[in-house]
């Protein structure tokens, strides 16, 4: 059933036998895949955008450039940045669609610590981690000298700084070349797919901190967005 802007075929990458209730949330498409302007603000978003807009070239932009991307008439943007999502929501010519919670950030160290009140530390659409790992040792046995995070991941950085703010680490630092040879390092902030998260990584313990999700921001009239009853989203793009 076509609700808005029908006339497009369903992407073959999606399930061939969709449920009966299929909704089209945006009309379209009007732009061919090879001419779509698609961007994402992080590596997860790039993968997602590449999957949704197959055939389109996806560029990686910073938060500020993401706002410029919207102002410049970009077609598709995948981001988890709260400020970008807020800005896109304020624009009538763009539709913002929350995608499923798909990432989990965890604190990985030798210690098992109950860590609370970290959601506000990130500038992303985040929630406290739905998954909880059992805490068998309450006492803090070691305060890591540094908590390392991937240099390009601002969410991980914010979480690392929050841990420092909570005195759970002495300093936050990006992962560098010398990280493996640095024997003082014993803690990391890692981002991982939410469905493959585990509580133990080798000899280290993972403490889930937050779950995050991306938002699909599409320019109205450029592409069609179809969501099935399972919550899966696909783009309808002009051939």
């Amino acid at each position, binding site marked *: 059933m076509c609700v808005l802007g029908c006339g497009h075929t369903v992407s073959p990458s999606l399930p061939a036998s969709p449920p009966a209730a299929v909704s089209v949330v945006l009309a379209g498409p009007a732009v061919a895949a090879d001419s779509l302007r698609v961007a994402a603000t992080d590596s997860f978003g790039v993968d997602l955008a590449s999957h949704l807009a197959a055939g389109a070239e996806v560029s990686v932009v910073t938060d500020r450039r993401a706002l410029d991307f919207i102002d410049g008439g970009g077609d598709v943007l995948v981001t988890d940045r*709260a400020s970008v999502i807020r800005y896109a929501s304020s624009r009538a010519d763009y539709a913002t669609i929350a995608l499923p919670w798909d990432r989990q950030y965890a604190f990985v160290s030798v210690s098992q610590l109950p860590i609370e009140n970290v959601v506000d530390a990130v500038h992303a659409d985040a929630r406290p981690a739905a998954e909880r790992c059992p805490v068998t040792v309450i006492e803090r046995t070691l305060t890591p000298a540094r908590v390392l995070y991937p240099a390009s991941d601002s969410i991980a950085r914010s979480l690392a*700084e929050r841990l420092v*703010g909570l005195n759970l680490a002495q*300093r936050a630092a990006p992962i560098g070349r010398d990280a493996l040879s640095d024997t003082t390092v014993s803690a990391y902030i890692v981002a991982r797919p939410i469905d493959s998260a585990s509580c133990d990584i080798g000899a280290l313990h993972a403490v889930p901190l937050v779950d995050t999700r991306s938002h699909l921001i599409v320019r109205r009239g450029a592409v069609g967005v179809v969501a099935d009853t399972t919550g899966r989203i696909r783009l309808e793009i002009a051939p």
Partner: protein
Amino acid sequence: MSFRTRLFIAFGLIAIVPLIGLAIGVRRELEARLTTQYQSRVAALAAVTRTDLAQTSAAVGDRLASLRDQLPDDERLRAALREPGQRAYLLDYAGQAMRMTGLDMLQLQDSAGRILSSGQFRNEYDRLDPSLPHMLDRGAALVNARTPDGPRLVLARVDSARIGDRQIRLVGGIAVDSAFLDRLRTDSTLTVSLTAHQDAVAEIPFPFISGDSLSTKQFVISHPSTDLEALRQSVDRWFVAAVALVAIAATLGAVILAARVGQPLATLAAETERLDLDRLDVNFATTRDDEIGTLSRGLGALVKRLRSSTVRLKEAERRATIGDLSRQVTHDIKNGLAPLRHVLRHFDQVARDDPGALAPIYAERRATLDASVTYLDALARNYARLTPRTEPQRVDVNAIARSVVVPDGMTLNLVLDPAMPAITADPIVVRRIIENLVSNAIAAMGTRGTLTISTTNNGCLTIADTGRGMTEEQLAHAFEGPGLGLSIVRRLVTDLAASLRVETAPGKGTSIEIAFT
């Protein structure tokens, strides 16, 4: 010490010593002035630094006051303070406000001291730090603000705003980092730091909050001592160079002066050494008009006077020699005539008393007459030549001794050793020696006495009298005076390479021994 060395020392004393004194004085004065100037600069920088710190503190206060006035008007902030769902705005507020106001630290704290929003450390929210705003109420202070990368030293102040019924404490500040310290430095040679430094010249205390304690941190103004030391070394190098230059100049001057002054003096000395009474042809003529010329002309005049004096001296010596020679001739002739006179008196007495014995007496004394005549003849020939030419031959001293005749009233005692060896000499000279000694002995005895002539087999001749003898003083002067008997004897004995010994005492006569071998 040579003249050149003296010149060099004089140059050293005149040039180098004053130069060293001047250099030391200049160095001291320079150091004193530099120190004064340096202290003024340090004091000025300290004053400027205090002013800058006060201005920075005032600027922080102004920015916080601006925020304080603006805060209650922000309805989103009000909402964020009230509704947990709007908390993101609150957490980001301090960071944005900090950047907008140009502060390096800004944190909003509630009345309990809980950090609501932190600009320098966004994710430090909810940490309790009630002591910081409380201690900053006393005034600006340095604090170690927390950041994710570590502590950051900040000059901080505190202000308060009221939003509704909530009091918000605003703690803000400017980072005191290397850039800030560089801005405080108005003198390129002075540095401002917060760490103790061995070259520290001034310290400016400033309140420092660390945790819950309030202490003092020092802004240290330092000056690299190497600069002043380099200046000193530069002055010393120039000073050493100047001394070396003057020393070289002094050496060259000494050498040149020694050459110009010492060489003429050395030449004068060499010419003067050539001077002798027999060689007064040294020429001291010069055209120099300096002291050397004056000295040369003085020496020339001296030589001229010496020449004149020498001429007069030689004339006087010639005259004295002639007189001496005359006296000697007279003396020798008198000595030669004395035997003749004695023999003739004897003949006269015999002719008067016993004329018949005249012939045998004559025969007896003829040898004496012949010897005297021969002596006088030889004497005459020698003096005629003026330069007597000796003719060495074997001389029988005993024979000459036997020809000696003494006046009446005196006794002649001959103790002649036949083994007395003949000597090789001019017989006239030997006879003159004996005649002179006998003549002196007769004179010493007056009218009576005994004259003893003895010889020995080892070539010694002794003539002793019983006359008045001589004191030591008389003996000392006995051989003085040209033309006198003993002086002639001594000269003749010396010519024969013989030796002479005198034994005499007042009233005990005189004995003179001559060793011919």
